[in-house]
């Protein structure tokens, strides 16, 4: 893969080494890592993101609120529903619109489809080859055909679930402010509920399989941040909570979380009370285990892992648990599906500011819009999960590399770094691209 490591001859007992990985494989997008080691210590470490900025916040200015869901979907092909739902939450907040129980339930169903699709893609195509020592899922499929086929089938189920409410799974077209453009026929919903029920056994097997993968003992201290809700495991709506007891409304986000630009990245860095923090499946599970239904909690207990987990390598298990949960949840919500009188409520725009968030597959996604009296966007701000995780990824790499041992050869160090980064399922399209690893040893 990529260029060969280049090691200079040892000089007075110290070696100087540089590694370049121009493109990091199996992440969504491209990034670079710069690492300098001197005297057995990490002297410099930075995750570099060279996202060609696509300037979405500016494209949105002057657009009608009705155009926003179709526009923001284009930020990410893997989690378009997350962008659409955070956006409609924020705009409905601005307009004082309550879309009602049918719309909320169906948004949750659509979102379950995206979690299933994105998590299964990550587990099988991006992460699992690391744990089993393959370059790609295609190589892995030769030795583990059942595991790969089960994963691809679950991913396809997620895609089909998204099609039910969105017509297609990449940039779906069903979501609008106030609800949906279209309500599926009850027969379609029933057929989907049956497919979901039938897939539950596979999702349980997936959880057990992920929990059986050998992972490093890499315990770290970090703050988890996720959404929280009194009744439900958080997906499409709720407040924002943190492991230290924080519980705030989406409108208060900017009072607690800051974003800053660093020289080596086009993604902005987020900090909570001046510290790095974690968003994503492990953070969600750490904070919301008690919101899972009893059978899911039992499955979690069977993993024989200690929850909450402080080991980022357990993210793959958290993802598998969420796949199981999402299949069961969508089946439950579609079980008693009835056709609504209308798939959306009427929306009357008014001037104001709205805040909205939701749990993208890879973590909290927060939006804020200022809108004029005609419903045109005056100003937009979007904070994607990957930029929130970026500081945590760097902190993790530092700790994890020390624990792993800096005396490993460059190829092993590079692989370890890639595994650590992939635990976060970074979506560099949301924040974006170019993972180039430079290790300098002096």
């Amino acid at each position, binding site marked *: 893969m990529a260029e060969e490591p280049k090691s200079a001859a040892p000089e007075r007992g110290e070696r100087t080494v540089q590694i370049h990985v121009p493109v990091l494989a199996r*992440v969504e997008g491209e990034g670079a890592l710069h690492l300098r080691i001197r005297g057995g210590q990490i002297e410099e470490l930075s995750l570099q993101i*060279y996202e060609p900025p696509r300037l979405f916040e*500016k494209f949105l200015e002057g657009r009608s609120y009705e155009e926003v869901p179709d*526009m923001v979907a284009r930020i990410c092909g893997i989690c378009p529903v997350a962008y659409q739902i955070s956006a409609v939450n924020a705009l409905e907040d601005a307009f004082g619109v309550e879309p009602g129980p049918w719309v909320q339930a169906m948004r949750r169903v659509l979102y379950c489809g995206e979690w299933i699709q994105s998590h299964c893609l990550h587990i099988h195509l991006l992460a699992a080859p690391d744990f089993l020592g393959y*370059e790609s899922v295609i190589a892995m499929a030769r030795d583990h055909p059942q595991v790969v*086929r089960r994963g691809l089938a679950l991913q396809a189920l997620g895609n089909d679930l998204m099609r039910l409410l969105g017509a297609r799974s990449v940039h779906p077209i069903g979501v609008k402010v106030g609800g949906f453009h279209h309500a599926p026929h009850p027969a379609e919903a029933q057929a989907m509920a049956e497919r979901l029920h039938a897939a539950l056994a596979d999702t349980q097997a997936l959880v057990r399989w992920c929990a059986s993968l050998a992972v490093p003992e890499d315990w770290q201290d970090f703050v988890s941040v996720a959404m929280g809700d009194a009744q439900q495991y958080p997906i499409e709506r709720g407040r924002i909570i943190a492991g230290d007891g924080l519980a705030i409304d989406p409108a208060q986000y900017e009072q607690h979380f800051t974003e800053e630009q660093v020289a080596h990245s086009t993604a902005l860095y987020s900090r909570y009370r001046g510290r790095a923090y974690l968003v994503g499946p492990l953070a969600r599970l750490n904070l919301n285990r008690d919101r899972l239904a009893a059978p899911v909690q039992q499955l979690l207990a069977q993993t024989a892992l200690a929850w909450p987990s402080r080991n980022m390598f357990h993210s793959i298990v958290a993802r598998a648990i969420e796949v199981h949960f999402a299949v069961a949840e969508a089946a439950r919500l579609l079980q008693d599906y009835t056709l609504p009188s209308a798939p959306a409520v009427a929306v009357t725009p008014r001037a104001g500011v709205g805040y909205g968030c939701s749990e993208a597959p890879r973590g909290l996604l927060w939006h804020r819009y200022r809108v004029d009296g005609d419903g045109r966007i005056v100003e937009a701000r979007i904070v994607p999960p990957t930029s929130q995780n970026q500081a945590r990824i760097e902190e993790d790499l530092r700790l994890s590399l020390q624990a792993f041992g800096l005396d490993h050869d460059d190829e092993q160090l590079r692989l370890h770094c890639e595994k650590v980064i992939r635990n976060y399922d970074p979506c560099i399209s949301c924040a974006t691209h170019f993972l180039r690893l430079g290790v300098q040893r002096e």
Partner: protein
Amino acid sequence: MAATKPRVAVHKFSSCDGCQLAFLNLGDALLQVAELVELAHFAEAGPVDPDAPVDIAFVEGSVSTPEDLERIARVRANSRFLVTIGACATAGGVQALRNLANTAEWVAAIYAKPDHIRLLEHSTPIASHVKVDLELWGCPVNARQIIGALRALLFGVTPAEERDKVCLECKRRQSVCVVVTKGLACMGPVTRTGCGALCPSFGRDCYACYGPAENPNTAALARRFEGLGLSPAAVGRRFLFINSGAPAFRDQGLGASGKANG
């Protein structure tokens, strides 16, 4: 069976990754594709060898940085057939909207230290820089399009190109026309088919994510939209959206917007 399989690469430029998903969402068919061809470079799926000589290169994303310019030249030099996948690679993508504005001002508005951001002034399609053998339109492209193109190229035949309007697909699906029945500003009459006419089948207006159809009568449609009650600015935005870099849409959209301002 031939001793060596045809080699395929999937390259990414400025994009959302959504068109590559047409491969990654193939399910079982992804494994069949891997039997038919050797995936020499496809970073998101694992293999990384960006300078590998290949028979077919699929390119996602638009050219938007100085590095992209060098990279697309190398991709072209290393590929027998170069196929663009999606609106970004084929027309500059939604990010081509910045071509109509002052990019430097926008970057300064978002980033505290804009000097660190290296961007070309415009986001441009691949064909603005190198010869492209086949363009697949769509935001996103779907599995049917990429498998159709791949199969045709492997069989050595010219891939069929869909240039019909979405309206024809709507009729074939027996969907109800949303312009006639609901008065919606549907872009179907000027938009290339290929998506399956999804939006009208959901009772909503097409927003032209597949780009201009063959001989699109954009001026007539713009007049129709005004007749439906859209302001000139709103008509302009209909054309200046996902495919604002496509000349037929750009010219009509700028004309309508100019009317709004003037």
